[in-house]
């Protein structure tokens, strides 16, 4: 087992920990904004995961997925944020 | 690649596209719709003739051989149901056109016609599908179209009803998908014939679980007690033509799916007891519900539920005779339900509603209507010499032949149900058709007979009359029909013909 494997393990471990932390914040809240942030973070982490998978396999099949996820995660979070803003205005 | 099999699915879709493009030209749109449905009817008639001897036609879509590609299969049962459905669809189409011409509908024709054609395609595909997932797709096409149709001329009540309808249907679809996953997990295929072969080797208990699961899945759509509640809350609220088609076809498609899956996939008799129990419950609960309804549509819907029970009863007998009875009953019920709903639609034109609480003396207002109602009513009640009597006799013969206390209970339930059906349906006659007519109904009659409505109304009445005639024809042609039914039942009860037709010789 060479360095690379250690590296992969470490990466997965760290990312996994990150995911768990994000989940914590996601459930905890308190604000909707926090959740939106978590949404974005999740997408980024997912993209990272897939990137690592790509590295692990040297397989280009998932690269399209990487890009699309990056974009779509952004779009989703942005829409949500916009909506949150409008909500704020409705309240005001 | 048998073209006949593709026509009922493809032509309506093309028609739908065309009529969507032609939405600015109503006449053309109607023409396209009628043409498409007529060609479907013709094709299905040919199919029926081709399969009348028990042959099973298949067509491998795209030319990929059976387990790989999608197979369209037409066995006698499918062909028969297709033919009948096509006729009903065509007639209802004319009714709809008449109503639009008369300007008595708030439904948007430019939306109605395309989606109606899509519905047709969905129904046909569901009948023809020889592949579990394709059946799912067919169901979804049909259901999506029905979602769109049930919200035509949306009012508060209709939106509410469509909500119940949509959510329940979605639930069944999800469960259907789950079932497909399970079947694929167990057999590694979704082709019905292939799966049938492979399920033969699967553990019996697991097969049983699957059988029950699919019974639930299709039972929801077929409104088997106790999964029927949604139906009387949703069907009657839609506009007449839609209720007619739904009541006539959608539940029957589900029943067809039950028959197909239970006979072909899980064709063992260990589920018969469950079926019989469900049948008893469905018959009795349904008709009891019908007794206390005031709205004719709701009454008919409950009657529909209860009579689904008869078909399940026949299926539960698990014999050729019973299956034949089911087939006859299916045909009879498709026609008679559409018939009654259409008549009720015409009544609504006079009464403005369909509630018995404020409806009297239709016989005086329109004798023709009362004849149109009375004949199918007799048929629904199973009174001779109508088709309903044929169906009941076939079922009772099969039941008496089968024996067993559960069967006898079911027969008793059937008798009670028939009696209560008579009570319920003739209650409509006595309360709504007899008696001194309501003044506003007479006014409405005058208003409708004079002025712009007449032409359209004539078409509507003609369509209904054709439907009545079709019902009588079914009764008169009971001989050939029963022959055909037995042929179909024979094919159903031993799936060998089906499987060989799909997988080619030497399967299993």
């Amino acid at each position, binding site marked *: 087992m060479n360095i690379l494997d250690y590296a992969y393990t470490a990466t997965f471990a760290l990312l996994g920990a990150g995911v768990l932390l994000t989940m914590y914040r996601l459930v905890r809240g308190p604000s909707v904004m926090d959740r939106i942030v978590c949404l974005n973070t999740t997408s980024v982490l997912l993209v990272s995961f897939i990137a690592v*998978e790509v590295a692990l*396999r040297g*397989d280009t*099949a*998932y690269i399209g997925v990487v890009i699309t996820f990056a974009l779509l995660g952004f779009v989703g979070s942005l829409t949500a944020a916009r909506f949150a803003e409008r909500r704020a205005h409705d309240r005001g | 690649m048998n073209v006949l099999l593709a026509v009922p699915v493809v032509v309506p879709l093309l028609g739908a596209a065309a009529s969507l493009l032609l939405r600015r030209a109503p006449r053309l749109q109607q023409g396209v719709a009628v043409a498409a449905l007529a060609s479907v009817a013709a094709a299905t008639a040919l199919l029926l003739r081709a399969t009348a001897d028990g042959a099973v036609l298949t067509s491998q879509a795209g030319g990929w051989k059976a387990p790989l590609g999608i197979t369209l299969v037409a066995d006698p049962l499918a062909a028969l149901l297709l033919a009948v459905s096509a006729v009903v669809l065509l007639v209802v189409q004319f009714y709809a056109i008449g109503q639009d011409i008369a300007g008595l509908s708030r439904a948007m024709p430019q939306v109605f016609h395309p989606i109606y054609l899509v519905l047709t395609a969905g129904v046909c595909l569901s009948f023809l599908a020889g592949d579990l*997932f394709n059946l*799912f*797709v067919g169901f*979804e096409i049909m*259901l*999506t179209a029905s*979602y*769109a149709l049930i*919200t035509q001329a*949306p009012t*508060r*009540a209709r*939106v*509410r*009803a*469509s*909500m*119940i309808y*949509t*959510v329940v249907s*979605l*639930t069944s*679809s*999800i469960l259907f*998908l*789950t079932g*497909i*996953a*399970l079947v*694929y*997990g167990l057999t590694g295929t*979704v082709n019905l014939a292939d799966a049938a072969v492979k399920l033969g080797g699967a553990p019996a208990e697991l097969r049983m679980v699957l059988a029950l699961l699919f019974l639930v899945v299709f039972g929801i759509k077929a409104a088997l007690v106790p999964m029927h509640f949604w139906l*009387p*809350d949703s069907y009657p609220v839609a506009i007449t033509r839609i209720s007619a088609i739904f009541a006539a076809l959608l539940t029957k498609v589900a029943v067809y799916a039950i028959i197909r899956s239970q006979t072909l996939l899980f064709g063992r008799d260990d589920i018969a007891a469950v079926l019989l129990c469900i049948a008893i419950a469905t018959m009795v609960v349904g008709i009891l519900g019908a*007794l*206390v*309804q*005031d*709205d004719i549509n*709701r009454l008919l819907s409950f009657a529909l539920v209860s009579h689904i029970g008869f078909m399940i009863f026949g299926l539960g007998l698990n014999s050729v005779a019973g299956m034949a009875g089911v087939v006859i009953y299916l045909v009879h019920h498709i026609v008679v339900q559409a018939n009654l709903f259409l008549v009720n639609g015409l009544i609504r034109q006079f009464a403005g509603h369909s509630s018995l*609480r404020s409806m009297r003396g239709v016989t005086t207002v329109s004798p023709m209507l009362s004849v149109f109602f009375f004949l199918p009513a007799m048929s629904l009640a199973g009174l001779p010499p109508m088709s309903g009597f044929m169906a009941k006799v076939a079922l009772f013969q099969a039941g008496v032949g089968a024996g067993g206390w559960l069967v006898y209970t079911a027969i008793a339930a059937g008798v009670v149900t028939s009696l209560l059906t008579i009570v319920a349906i003739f*209650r409509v006659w*006595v*309360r709504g058709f007899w008696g001194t007519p309501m003044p506003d109904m007479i006014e409405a009659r005058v208003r409708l007979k004079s002025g712009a409505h007449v032409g359209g109304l004539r078409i509507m009445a003609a369509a209904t009359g054709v439907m009545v005639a079709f019902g009588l024809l079914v009764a008169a042609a009971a001989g050939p029909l029963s022959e055909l039914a037995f042929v179909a039942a024979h094919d159903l009860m031993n799936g060998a013909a089906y499987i060989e037709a799909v997988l080619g010789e030497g399967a299993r």
Partner: protein
Amino acid sequence: MSAPGFILIAAVAVLYSSGFYLLLQRSLMRVVFGIVVLGHAANLSLMLTDRAITLPPLLTGKEGPISDPMPQAMALTAIVITFGVTTFLLALAYRVWLGDDNDEVPADLEDRRIGRLSEPEDSS
């Protein structure tokens, strides 16, 4: 032979359970959520019908077994279909909101009326 691990089975169980629970709520929006969750659940169970092979079904000449493309194809179709229907359901919710100010599923009026009856209306 090809059963997935317990973890995923648990995931499926949770998904179905929560989906059903959402489905049983009165607010149509939660029902929609329930449908979405159930859709996930169904697609997941489709996916779980084959061995957990991480190589995608691409004929790129890579060695090693590839995952079963069939469930993927079916799940793809199912996803799209579910999406379409969900959209319709949302439109329905919007419509309901137009009618009355919330998106709750009200009980059927005629059923309620009959439920209120104590005596059958006519026993002629």
